């Protein structure tokens, strides 16, 4: 049963001036698992996510999503191919309502025609109804169904993070990239997040999780990859990785290496 990995990255490299942020990363992510990427600050985790999602292209390498090469594609094309993401710093659409935020992504694969919009014809109306239905469904999954008509900017921090997840879900992705989704959350909120991720996995989504919160990572991940200075230094199950001496040194050694 050698199923094609949903994400297959080969030799992904990224330079910022003289700094090698990603050093020829290889990564295979099988379908349906929760894959965590951890590593000390500056190890290249977000850079890798940006390369995968098209937000900030790598300099070299190959990235395949379910077999389709996406290197160099603009982010909206990659999104339409089934990859959605959240961001390290929250980027919700502050001038839209909670529901509208999610509807933007729900329209992902339905660019819509100006003519239909202006004429407000039947096709436009049924399309809009479908988008709204899809968006409300995504909000229900993360538990924000009751706040659909609020201004997105009014949500408390943790709920804004959930909103980002709902928005990503509405694009009906096969792969979901979560960039430090638990940042700034307290214990209870993190546990809710963990449950949500489990729910998503149960629905068949593949999840790529970049996180600092070790408990969250170990609790929910099937596989873990560790980055340090742009290189992948370890990969395996959570337990294997925890015991890996290179990993321990990477985290501990940091304290001595930096001034």
């Amino acid at each position: 049963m050698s199923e094609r990995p949903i994400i297959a990255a080969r030799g992904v490299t990224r330079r910022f001036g003289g700094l090698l942020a990603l050093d020829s990363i290889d990564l295979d992510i099988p379908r349906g698992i929760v894959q965590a990427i951890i590593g000390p600050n500056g190890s290249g985790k977000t850079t890798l996510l940006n390369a995968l999602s098209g937000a900030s292209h790598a300099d070299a390498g190959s990235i395949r999503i379910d077999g389709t090469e996406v290197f160099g594609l603009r982010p909206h094309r990659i999104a339409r191919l089934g990859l959605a993401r959240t961001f390290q710093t929250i980027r919700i659409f502050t001038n839209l309502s909670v529901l509208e935020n999610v509807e933007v992504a729900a329209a992902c694969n339905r660019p819509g025609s100006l003519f239909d919009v202006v004429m407000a014809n039947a096709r436009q109306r049924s399309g809009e109804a479908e988008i709204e239905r899809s968006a409300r469904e995504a909000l229900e999954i993360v538990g924000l169904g009751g706040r659909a008509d609020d201004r997105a900017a009014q949500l408390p921090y943790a709920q804004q993070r959930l909103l980002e997840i709902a928005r990503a879900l509405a694009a009906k992705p096969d792969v979901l990239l979560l960039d430090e989704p638990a940042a700034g959350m307290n214990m209870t909120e993190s546990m809710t997040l963990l449950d949500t991720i489990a729910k998503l996995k149960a629905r068949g989504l593949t999840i790529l999780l970049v996180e600092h919160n070790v408990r969250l990572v170990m609790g929910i991940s099937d596989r873990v990859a560790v980055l340090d200075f742009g290189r992948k230094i370890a990969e395996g199950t959570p337990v294997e990785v925890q015991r890996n001496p290179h990993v321990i040194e990477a985290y501990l050694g940091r304290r001595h290496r930096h001034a």
Partner: protein
Amino acid sequence: MGQLVVNGLALGSIYALVALGLLLIFNTVQIVNFAQGQLLMLGAFIGITGAVTHELPVAVAWAVTMLAMALIGVVFMVLVYFPLRGRPPFLVILTTIAMGIVLENLALIIWGPLPVSLPSPVHGAPLRFFGVVISMHQLFIFGTLAVILLLQFLMLNKTRFGILMQATAQDLHTARLVGIPVNRTIAVAFAFGAMLSGIAGLLVAPIFLAEPTMGGSLGLKGFVVSVIGGFGNLPGAVIGGLFLGLIETFGARYISSNFRDAYAFIVMIAVLVAWPRGLFGEKSSEKV
């Protein structure tokens, strides 16, 4: 043709001065002042009021003008910079444009719409080389630019205050945290920025007559020069200014003088199409 070069360089030096004033303010507070041209206009008119209306000796008129411009610069800062700290750049643009409108119409009220002339501070027979005529005033323009560049370089790099200004420009927040008198350095930036434009006005008025609506196109040219030279880059602004002066002079002579003002924009658009972030990158793009 050599004559065109000289004329172009003289014109370009004035554009460079406008750009320098613009960049001094931008480098310190990240604001592009769309009223920089109106500051130039004020400099010209204050100079005219001193030298012509009150018949002060030209040197005195110059000194008074520079002082007045420094003051105006600080007032400008109070009215525009402080209330708009932290606001999106779009609103700052509109505010400086609005200030420009206020200054232009105040000038129309005070001095009327008719063009006026200002005598040059230097007199004497023009130089002649190989069929090219260089007037004393043009020499004075080159000289002034050179002196200002030297002074600016010395001040920014060799004096303690200059180093403080650079620190403030690089990171305002940290500068404040380490105890640098940030507001004072910003005030100085605005004062000098206004003075530079004022000097440009004093240099322009003897060549082209001064009238209150002159600020608009000159200010825009200053911005264009900054873009061509690489925003934030001072030597680049000088080179860009000279370059633009040459292009305008040659274009007006060989292509069409009607579209003189358009050449600046065409060059700028060409530069931006090739390098959308400007030749040296712009700070206001969204980081991922």
